């Protein structure tokens, strides 16, 4: 079996220092100047960051393999600089028991491109009323610690309270998709002047904020960890900021698309821009960006949601909700947060790697690039531009950035010492 | 651009007088005559012909004998020349059955406008007869249409342009060929 041993030369770390990084097998052997003793890979112009960790991905397998599989999703993740993804539970069958999560875990392992950590459902079949096999899933091979009914909201206050209490026993966290179902019946896009003009049922921001307000108070009461998925409004950011100031153990994520895109894109009824939670206003976009900078939002998570072409080649009301985002995430975050001067690369690394690894409890991820750490590294060329094409690693074409030129391309991705991406090309694994 | 005047103001006046006499002669009087001008200049010409008839036959009632026939919606070139505005059609009698309709236009060229006029007329009723009076016939017919009363026959080449000016709409009165 071929072993890994190479040196990444002349690369910049997130703090700006220029170094060489020596990798042997799965670990970082040395970090210094002018290293030698192995094949040298010139990384001038690149920034070496801790491999990215996505806390919110939809891999669609089992059950929706026409949209994505664990293999294709893993490849898309690797292409985007990720070395770990958390696979959401709204598969078919739902990941509400040990058997399904172990299946997902095994498929992820055999694909081998990234660490695939299954997320378990909070309730059986996502029915919102009966708790799923939370303990068994945690005790299984998949070692689930993040639980979410994402796609749906745990709207029953009693069920949410019980879930928060229950997972305390094993340090779990409930990741809430905040959407009051009663306020969003038939909702299609952000509620406001535009939705009124377009005749599309509105999804009011308060339907998200009110659930978050309730849940942070429940988390405080119960003394448990809470994570809020895909925060999309200024109001929600305000509540989370208040909760953190109060010492409540809540973490929050924002998607790349909510950092850039707004509701105006719905004006032509192009369902590529139909997503849940919906694209909001520029005011919300600015609040979310500031929140990432000031720590109110802890991580960026893609909510990569693949759908086949037919699901978007129809009228808005018929179309599925969701956008893919693994391959473009780093570039969007760089463009909206680093290029605007709101954050530096150190914070970039925190929100895409350190923090999600910590929230997800993945000890093998989010490790600092230093001697002894596992070699999970994303090498980005911040200056390189690339055109977003239909041909991508994901099986699905529902990419809102199609045709756009983005800057900041992932050049190499290293997972446990092995290159999964070289020169922006996905590698075929199993040669080792 | 080379221009030459083929009819001056006086020529036009004389032509109108002659045409008005010819119309009355062929109709054997002025009864049941209906002059319908095709917008825009055909309308002015129809009025003038009617006024000329009235001068010589005071019993001729202009109110019930002159109108306008807009042919835009019956043209066969709507999609290639789309800019035309539809103007109102005014037919002063309710029943065309006994009427001899005289269509009046300024220039007869391909004949397609007159074909459209015949189609338009048919949707209003069935006149006893339809005649055509034009100020200028410049040849180059694309359809078997001919004028009954002609101010002037002007053989032209198809690259030439005929410009008719009347005082109702322009600041002078003349027919000019432009090359």
């Amino acid at each position: 079996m071929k072993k890994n041993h190479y040196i990444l030369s002349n690369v910049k770390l997130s703090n700006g220092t220029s170094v060489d990084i020596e990798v042997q097998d799965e670990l970082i052997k040395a970090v210094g100047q002018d290293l030698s003793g192995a094949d040298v890979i010139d990384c001038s112009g690149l920034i070496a960051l801790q491999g990215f960790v996505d806390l919110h991905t939809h891999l669609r397998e089992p059950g929706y393999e026409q949209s994505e599989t664990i293999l294709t999703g893993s490849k898309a993740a690797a292409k985007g600089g990720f070395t770990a993804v958390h696979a959401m539970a709204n598969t078919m069958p739902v990941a509400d028991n040990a058997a399904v999560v172990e299946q997902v875990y095994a498929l992820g392992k055999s694909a081998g491109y990234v660490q695939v950590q299954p997320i378990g459902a909070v309730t059986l079949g996502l029915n919102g009323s009966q708790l799923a096999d939370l303990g068994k899933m945690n005790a299984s091979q998949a070692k689930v610690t993040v639980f979410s009914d994402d796609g749906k909201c745990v709207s029953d206050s009693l069920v949410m309270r019980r879930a928060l209490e229950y997972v305390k026993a094993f340090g779990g966290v409930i990741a809430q998709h905040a959407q009051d179902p009663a306020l969003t019946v038939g909702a299609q896009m952000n509620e406001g002047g535009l939705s009124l003009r377009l005749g599309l049922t509105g999804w009011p921001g308060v339907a998200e904020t009110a659930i978050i307000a309730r849940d942070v108070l429940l988390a405080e009461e119960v003394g448990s960890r809470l994570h809020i998925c895909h925060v999309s409004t200024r109001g929600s950011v305000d509540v989370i900021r208040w909760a953190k100031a109060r010492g409540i153990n809540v973490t929050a994520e924002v998607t790349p698309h909510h950092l850039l895109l707004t509701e105006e894109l719905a004006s032509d009824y192009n369902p590529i821009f139909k997503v849940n939670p919906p694209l909001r206003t520029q005011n919300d976009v600015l609040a979310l960006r500031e929140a990432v900078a000031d720590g109110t939002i802890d991580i960026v998570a893609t909510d990569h949601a693949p759908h086949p072409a037919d699901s978007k080649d129809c009228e808005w009301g018929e179309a599925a909700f969701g956008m893919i985002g693994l391959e473009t995430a780093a570039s969007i975050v760089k463009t909206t947060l680093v290029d605007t001067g709101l954050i530096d690369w150190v914070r970039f690394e925190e929100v895409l790697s350190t923090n999600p690894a910590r929230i997800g409890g993945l000890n093998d991820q989010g490790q600092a690039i230093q001697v002894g750490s596992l070699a999970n590294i994303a090498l980005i060329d911040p200056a390189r531009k690339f055109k977003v094409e239909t041909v991508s690693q994901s099986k699905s074409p529902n990419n809102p950035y199609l045709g756009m030129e983005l800057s900041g391309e992932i050049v190499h991705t290293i997972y446990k010492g092995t290159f999964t991406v070289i020169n922006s090309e996905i590698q075929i694994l199993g040669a080792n | 651009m080379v221009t030459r005047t083929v009819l001056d103001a006086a020529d036009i006046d004389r032509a109108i007088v002659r045409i008005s006499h010819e119309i009355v002669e062929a109709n054997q009087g002025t009864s049941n005559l209906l002059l319908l001008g095709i917008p825009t200049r055909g309308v002015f010409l129809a009025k003038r012909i009617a006024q000329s008839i009235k001068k010589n036959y005071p019993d001729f009632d202009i109110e019930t004998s002159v109108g306008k026939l807009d042919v835009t919606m019956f043209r066969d070139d709507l999609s290639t020349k789309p800019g035309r505005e539809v103007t109102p059609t005014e037919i002063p009698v309710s029943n065309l059955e006994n009427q001899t309709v005289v269509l009046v236009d300024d220039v007869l060229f391909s004949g397609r406008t007159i074909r459209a006029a015949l189609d338009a007329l048919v949707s209003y009723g069935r006149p006893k007869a339809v005649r055509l009076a034009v100020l200028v016939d410049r040849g180059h017919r694309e359809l078997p249409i001919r004028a009954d009363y002609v101010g002037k026959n002007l053989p032209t080449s198809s690259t030439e342009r005929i410009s008719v000016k009347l005082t109702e709409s322009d600041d002078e009165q003349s027919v000019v060929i432009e090359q």
Partner: protein
Amino acid sequence: MKHLLSINDLDKGSAISLLNLAVEMQQVNSREVKKLPALNGRTVANLFFEDSTRTKISFELAAKRLSADVINFTAKGSSVSKGESLKDTVQTIEAMGVEALIVRHHHSGAANTIANSTWSTSAVINAGDGTHEHPTQGLLDSLTIRQRLKGAVDKGDLAGVRVLIAGDILHSRVARSNLLLLRLLGAKVGIVGPATLVPDDARILADFIYFNFDEALADKFDVVMMLRMQRERMNSAFIPNETEYSTLWGLSESRFKALSSETLIMHPGPMNRGLEISSAAADSPQSAILDQVTNGVAVRMAVLYKLLAQETSLK
């Protein structure tokens, strides 16, 4: 391709031009031979995925008066009720060779989707999509107002006219198209209804917002346009019950009698007599409700003529 999807596809000049063309079409409709050869040999398809009698018949008549051939597709009992997608339905009709699609659909934006897609190369006319727009209704309403208030041959705009639209603004595509067109033509428009059905966001669409019908009527509008109250709204907690709606926002006989005798009464139909509008108002000489129906054919002829015969875009 040239389409009519929304009033926003028009500018003031082209809107007035369409109204004037409709006046000419009214002439055609009052002759013995109600026919123009303009669309001879062309085929037009009525794609009605939502029930409608009056609009469908109106469009069919308009197309036939222009000598076009008409295909009628209704969703009931068709392939759509067996689950066929919009894309497949459109492509199937296209394959038979049509040049215009007149589309009514329950999803907002359906006509836009068809027009922007690769499924069809036909001109698309929106005959009502979800709660978005119903542009030909807006046009026929504006024509009715102009002719009743400014005379049958007036060729101008609606400057100085004040219109009040009353009822379920939130769910009304007729209201949206009217708000856009009336204001484009220079009229001032007020809206009134219960706050659950007249959202705050509507402030950008109208000149005046009221929640009290009597207060609105006291501000003297030249036209009062009543919208149909759909009974389903009672079940979704928009209003408590019919009687309350009727009492507070219905054009009752007494409210009607208190109006000036010059005030025009309009309703896009079908009416719920006794709910949003009393028979006293609907059947009075001030009512333009039947004019609206008549004008519908002329307006739709004008639109078809402009889009298909002249093949011009509407701006």
